């Protein structure tokens, strides 16, 4: 059994937002709808200040809060660990977004365009892929992965079978692979560099690991 996971190297992330935009473009997401958000934190007082970037996306928790909270069953967990939202089932209550400890979900409230009032061929074609009034979140590009696998490619190694954000990251800060395979790049990185997960104390068992900055 596979368990897909991502590793984020905080030492390498430079906050460029390439992951965010490439994901948006790939999935055809409208204004302010993001599946991965690179947040920024600043701590301390001048001149002893620490500033850092933390890419946040769905952690594909093994025990997902959202799954438990979702009343409709629109949120589902696949056998490979990927947590997805079935847009056809979602009623848009937003409980999942509130309970997610990682602010991984965005609600598509209305069909909003970057260029209000103006026609734009691209938006007209791409935004039909999503339903308004439903929840959006990272799905580890599962369609891409499934399709890649069906062509005999290995996720995390072949770009065609790897999430868009991972292959676009210009800091090479993102890795994807199978957590259950101790030899996979993600497993090895987590071991070698003391990978940790965010808010582990909540018991959500995220599948996204972070490598420390120092």
């Amino acid at each position, binding site marked *: 059994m596979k368990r897909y996971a991502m590793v984020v190297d905080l030492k390498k992330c430079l906050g460029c937002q390439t992951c965010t935009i490439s994901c948006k473009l790939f999935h055809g997401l409208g204004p302010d709808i993001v599946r991965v958000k690179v947040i920024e934190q600043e701590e301390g007082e001048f001149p002893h200040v620490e500033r850092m970037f933390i890419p946040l996306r769905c952690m594909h928790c093994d025990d997902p809060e959202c799954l438990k909270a979702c009343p409709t069953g629109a949120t589902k967990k696949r056998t490979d660990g990927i947590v997805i939202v079935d847009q056809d089932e979602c009623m848009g209550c937003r409980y999942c977004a509130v309970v997610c400890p990682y602010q991984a979900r965005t609600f598509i409230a209305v069909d909003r365009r970057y260029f209000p009032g103006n026609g734009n061929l691209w938006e007209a074609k791409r935004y039909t892929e999503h339903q308004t009034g439903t929840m959006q979140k990272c799905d580890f590009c599962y369609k891409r992965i499934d399709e890649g696998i069906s062509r005999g490619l290995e996720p995390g190694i072949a770009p065609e079978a790897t999430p868009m954000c991972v*292959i676009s990251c210009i800091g090479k800060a993102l890795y994807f692979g199978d957590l259950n395979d101790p030899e996979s790049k993600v497993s090895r990185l987590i071991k070698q560099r003391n990978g940790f997960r965010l808010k582990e104390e909540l018991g959500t068992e995220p599948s996204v690991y972070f490598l420390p900055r120092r």
Partner: protein
Amino acid sequence: MKEVKTYCFQCYNGPDPFKMIVEDGIVRHIEPDFDCAGISPGEGRVCVKAYGLVQKMYNPNRIKTPLIRTNPKKGKNEDPRFREATWDEALELVAEKLREIRKKGLLDEKGYPRLAVSMGEAGSPAGYGGTFPAFLSAWGPIDFTLGGGEGSKCYHAEHLYGELWHRAFIVASDTPRNRWTLSFGHNTNASAGVSGAMRHADARERGYKRIQAEPHLSVSAVTSDEWIPIKTKTDAPFMYAMINVILHEMAWEKVCDIDFIKKRTNSPYLIGPRGYYLRDIETGEVLVWDSVEGASKIYNDPSIKDFALTGKYRVRAKERGPDGEEWIYDEAECRPAFQLLLEHMRAYTPEWASEVCDVPASTIRRIAREMIENASIGAEIEICGEKIPLRPVAITLGKTISNGPGGYQACWARTILAMLTGSLEVAGGSVGASQRLNRPHHDRWSSIWPGEDGFFQNFLNPTDPERRANLPKTRSHYTELVPLVGNTGWSPFLSPVPHAWLWFSQSPENWEKPTYPDVWIIYRTNPNMSMYYTDLMEETTKEFPFIVSIGYTLDETNWYADVILPEHTDLEGLQLFRVGPSTHSEAYWQEYGFALRQPGTAPPYNTMDMTELSTELAIRTGILKEYNEAINAGIILGIRLQGRGYNYMLNPDRRYSIEEIWDRLCRASVRLLTNGKEERDLEWFKQNGYFTVVYPFIRHFLHPVMVKWGLRYEIPYQGRLKIIGEELKRRLEDKGIKWWEEQLKEYEALPRCEDFSQKWDESVRALGLDPDEYPFYMVNTRSMQYAWGSNASLPIMAEMAKYVTGFGGIVINASVAEKLGIEDGDTVVVESPVKKKTCRAIVREGIRPDTVLVTGQFGNWAVPFAKDLKIPSLNEFMYPDQRLFDAGGSSADIVKVKVYKITID
């Protein structure tokens, strides 16, 4: 679904190849092109800006069809009232004006070119202009000096001195082999593109150390190991003190790369009593002191046993000064340049610098020691089977550090530190990226030829009266004022551009006021936004008789245009472009060659490809023949259409289609790369994207070629500059020009250092104001999401940028804000001596209390969408002040301001 290969060159860190995914008649999305993973430093990935190209293409706020002005009155508050026109009508209107010029003569009564063309974006128009260069070349004399902010506001001193010492436009670090980098405001994570970002990310993973010295904790400081909150414009003093520590507190004889200092620099050159190189009386060659034999010898005498670096000697010799003047001495008292350096640097103690930079002296000492400790002097590494020194330490400079007052000193001190550690142009050290003032641009090795006195050749503007008499005229007069900038294709862009603009309204004493160009073509630059003193700029452009903009959206400059010709954008046009071996920046390729930019789908609007536009203009102005001949001769990317065994020449009298022209250029380009052996046509390029051949990586380092020719870097002693400076001074004195005196003082053999931050206080004082009233240095920083102001019209970029603190307002230190009663998000007034504006305060801890920061290049009032962002621009707060120009005519993006809470009354 179809994959279409192309490249991005929205900023000078490219070109970066990628793939468009085309489906259902639209460019659906963008993906990296991993086919070039082993070839390009970006490994086939593209940055956030490239993903914005899709929105750029479908942007409904684009100029969708040619526009012609109907309101003859020009002004910020005058709606140009553009009306839509057909291509034929618009082109004919432009051609008519151009034909008039050809009738009247290409130069006007005063000798200035009647046609002026401005291109900006730091050279990236080359990746988009198609055959436009052929049109320009076919035309004849053109004034390129009416530029935007590029060049003179760029890494200016770095460009000029970089070419002088490194043969490089920008000096980067050999990051993959580097162990320790000290960056003075070199904002890698925002400005170094995919290649820079990626190389530094890899180095972090490997564990190199990076120190970022900067007045605020920038996005690059985020991933650095240490942040030194240095005061603005005190970078040179910091480095001077580092040199002082090495030379006067450490045993420099033991810890420095003595071999390098002796053999690769002019440190051993003897300097005469008048401060010029001491020369052999008979041969005129420079002398050194052989400490073993105790005698003076010509610098390249193979019998020299050891070079003296210190001491005082008496030698029978001569000195040669300005205008060939010579002094012959029976016994000239002389010292090696290095000895003079030692003496020169004594005063610049860490304690002195500590006061100036607001950094503890202990930190400066530690940093100096760290640099030495990490230099691994003596180590070697093999690259392409060749052994070269490995000195994994480097210092990089950002643009505001390397322009304006103190720019020269910063570049010089940086190079001195490279010299002391032997890390100049060797593996792991300070390595230049491609050159622009010298040719060929793409291969630094081939431009290195032995010149005078054991240095490599440099082509500077003449300072002797004879050759100066016949210099071609441009409105910035760079050939007369800035010897270092030379006079090749790029020189006008790096000239003292502000001059040209300032002098239209008021020229200085004994200096001619320039004429307005009959026709001004602007392409991919927005001077009224990117230059300083934007109000003055607008007043000037308003007066221009005829302005043609090859544009994308309405902007603050083409607001004043008479015609706007909309071009195909990045994902729509067709052309070939050079990739590798290095660009202006830290982008060192493993291979080099040519890549194709091609349309993904049919363009959605009535725009035109630059090649077609150029051909049209050539035909309509009657220079088709010259145009075709220019293409034949290799004006496009240096690809000649004829060579041994092949001939793809265009018939000069015939009109060729876009595809025909590029097909020939494609074929010829591959011939060029393969010594005539292979050929690929346009179709092949369309499928495969690019054709490259191996570039021996060793060629990225100058060291081997310097050794091969037995050459030295002219460092530390600026013998030549001293002479040039004096000659220039004489020439200007002859003309009664006094206003360049401050700048002439910069031509020092060993530059003196001072607290350059004070210059901005002096400037405020000179206006009759109290500098204490303006307590903040306002500085500017780039963001990865924006390429200057060129993608400011894209809402998706604003969305991406907003996740990074600093975008959309002015950043101010938290404790200062508290004192001023300012809270995050408050509207505050920012006031410089000349401008007052409100904006949003962004309160942060990671910024010096004496600094405020704006991100990016905004301030727009015309560009769609961007104009609603209401983000201030540093440029509008600035005012012309000659004392803030350096000898190259550049100035730094710094202005003193006050900030206060808005009070409603």
